């Protein structure tokens, strides 16, 4: 154990973390964005990115019909080409978990996980009692993954131990049944120092994944933010031997964006993180761009948008 679970040891650990230099972190991310990924490596990256997509719908207007069509898309992203891998997971609100699970099972997506957002997503503004029920509800409904939001208000007011405790309690509810992804909402934490601290705090409290954003706040998964989080999981692995996943979400819409994310992974955390078990991309529109670029790479020309499905 690198901390003993007490508030004192957590505070000491977080305050001992080295600072992040904003200019330097942004320069490194910008440099990595110049990597030129072509031909065979592009083809590999597109398929890897597809298999990492957490295909997401988190709208007030979500209906069983919408969720079911998303499930179909998740299992067979391109019905005209069965060599396209399935996506990483489906990500929905609590009340849609059951529908998503049974639909996936019905159409050949038994191995596809369903992720539910919990703990008063997206604001996180509810009592711990409500958050616990929310999480329990998701797990009971059959969610394989829980994407919880942290209490940014608590973090920003200096109550990092409250955030730590909350994650720990939610992790207990998830138990063995569900993986826990902890959403930092980096757009509200603002500084890279905060992102680094929150990343470590979440990992120490039991997160299986650390995730940038809800997708409801901009900026979301910017390259420097993901860089800082990848550095955190890399350093946490050095300290503990434990590999924690990273999930950028929000603002990744094009194949180019997705490939830049994979380059960040490769040259920061390392190639071992290039698997859907350790890296996911939360997105909806991205998937179709990946599919269109995949077609283009194979046929040499761009197809009309009508050649990819809109589910």
């Amino acid at each position, binding site marked *: 154990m690198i901390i003993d679970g007490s508030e004192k040891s957590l505070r000491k650990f977080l305050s001992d973390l080295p600072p992040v230099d904003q200019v330097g972190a942004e320069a490194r991310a910008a440099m990595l964005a110049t990597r030129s990924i072509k031909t065979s490596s592009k083809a590999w990256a597109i398929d*890897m990115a597809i298999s990492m997509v957490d295909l997401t719908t988190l709208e007030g207007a979500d209906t069983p019909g919408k969720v079911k069509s998303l499930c179909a898309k998740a299992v067979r992203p391109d019905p005209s080409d069965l060599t396209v891998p399935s996506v990483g997971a489906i990500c929905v609100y609590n009340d849609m978990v059951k529908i998503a699970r049974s639909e996936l099972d019905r159409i050949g997506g038994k191995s596809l996980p369903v992720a539910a957002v919990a703990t008063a997503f997206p604001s996180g503004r509810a009592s711990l009692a409500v958050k616990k029920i929310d999480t329990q509800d998701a797990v009971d409904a059959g969610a394989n993954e829980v994407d919880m939001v942290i209490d940014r208000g608590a973090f920003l007011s200096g109550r990092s131990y409250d955030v730590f405790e909350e994650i720990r309690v939610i992790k207990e509810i998830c138990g063995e049944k569900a993986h826990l992804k902890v959403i930092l909402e980096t757009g509200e934490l603002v500084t890279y120092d905060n992102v680094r601290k929150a990343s470590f705090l979440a990992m120490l409290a039991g997160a299986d994944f650390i995730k940038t954003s809800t997708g409801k706040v901009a900026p979301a998964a910017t390259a420097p933010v993901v860089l800082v989080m990848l550095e955190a999981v890399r350093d946490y692995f050095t300290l503990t031997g434990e590999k924690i996943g990273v999930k950028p979400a929000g603002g990744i819409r094009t194949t180019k964006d997705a490939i830049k994310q994979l380059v960040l992974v490769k040259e920061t955390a390392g*190639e071992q993180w290039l698997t859907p078990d350790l890296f996911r991309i939360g997105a909806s529109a991205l998937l179709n761009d990946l599919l269109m670029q995949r077609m283009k790479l194979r046929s040499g020309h761009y197809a009309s948008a009508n050649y990819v499905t809109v589910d």
Partner: protein
Amino acid sequence: MSDFEYANAPESKAVANISPNYGLFIGGKFVDPKKGKSFSTINPATEELLSKVGYGDKSDIDAAVRSARAAYTKVWSKMPAKERGKYLYRIARIMQERAREFAVVETLDNGKPIRESRDTDIPLAAAHFFYHAGWADKLDYAGFGSKPKPLGVVGQIIPWNFPLLMLAWKIAPALAAGNTVVLKPAETTPLTALLFAEVCQQAGLPDGVVNIVTGDGITGAALVNHPDINKVAFTGSTEVGKAIARSISATKKTATLELGGKAANLVFEDAAIDEAVEGIINGIFFNQGHVCCAGSRLIIQENVADEVLEKLKKRMSLIRVGDPMDKNTDLGAINSKEQLNKIEEISKTGDAEGANRWSPDVKLPTKGFWYPPTIFTGVTQSHRIAREEIFGPVLSVLTFRTPAEAIEKANNTMYGLSAGIWSDKGAKVLWAAKQLKAGVIWSNTFNKFDPASPFGGYKESGWGREGGRHGLAGYLTSDSKVNK
């Protein structure tokens, strides 16, 4: 587990129209050398012949200086300053338009990664012309005296590490101030200077304002010793700089000398470690370490040294060494066999004197000149690798216990060109910057250049400054001091 190998992403050579032969650029035209001699320039990454360029001797230098003098007295010094500025703007724009071509030729001739020539060398070179173009008609109001005057004809000698950029550092301020120039590019990297000669023609620059004479050290000496030049501007080794200083000592010629360096890069315990590691990498492996201001002495506070070195080694393992034309290459070829031998020779003294050498496991190409990214730990002030400029991808690592000791070690060198400070504490950075005897000090960054920022050194790192208002001063004089 994955296999995300980056496929080859080579920049196309098609944009580079390298002629098989080049003459000397004198009086606005390419002319054959008087003795008809030429020499080869090769691609250091493949050892393939790129072109044969004219070898200028004393008689060619004489012709070039006469052409520059005529252009100075008849055209350039009489031209309204605003018009001079227009030519410089035009040159800058053409350089931007032909940036890709310049980048490709620079990388082929020099061996540096295309990413660097594309993103650093060429844009900065154009920026120097833009910056100085703006100065041309404002010199009277810039604190250089009421009516500052150009010096006359300037002899300029540039090195091979940033061929076009060093040309821009030299030619742009000289022309903006109203001088005419004779420039000798480095022997191993003449091509972008010759391409620049084409740009001068394209811009309609009056004949003789810029003259470019390719050759070797003998050509350079002929230029320095020519009786009709008013100033020498040189960037290169301290050894040659000293020789130049000696040879002009009994003349009225002035000089700007940008010489060697052995910069200290100081990492304090409170630094942003990940970004400091990036800065260390950039400090010593940018341009294969062929940088006079390279951060070649890493001096780390002892209590964070292990952490920094562990991260540094991991990061070094990610450096992509190989084909400079590949857009993903980070470390290119060593510029010449001669330089490679020099790097090998000094590095061997590191082994012999008991320092610990480490390099990541990299595959070096079989053809061309290559040296792996290398660090030496356990280095002390008494090691040769801590004192002499290696001018290659070789980093010497030392440690310190207290800030005062850091400064003492940093300043304990015959050079004083640049230094880096890594700390998250503003007061400490400012304190350290005051103590360091170096012309350029970077805080939480390294190897950042800007035309507006003066560059130059203390001690054996040289005389004078280049860039900014300070650099312009070296190309101007007040009425009473005009030489001719």
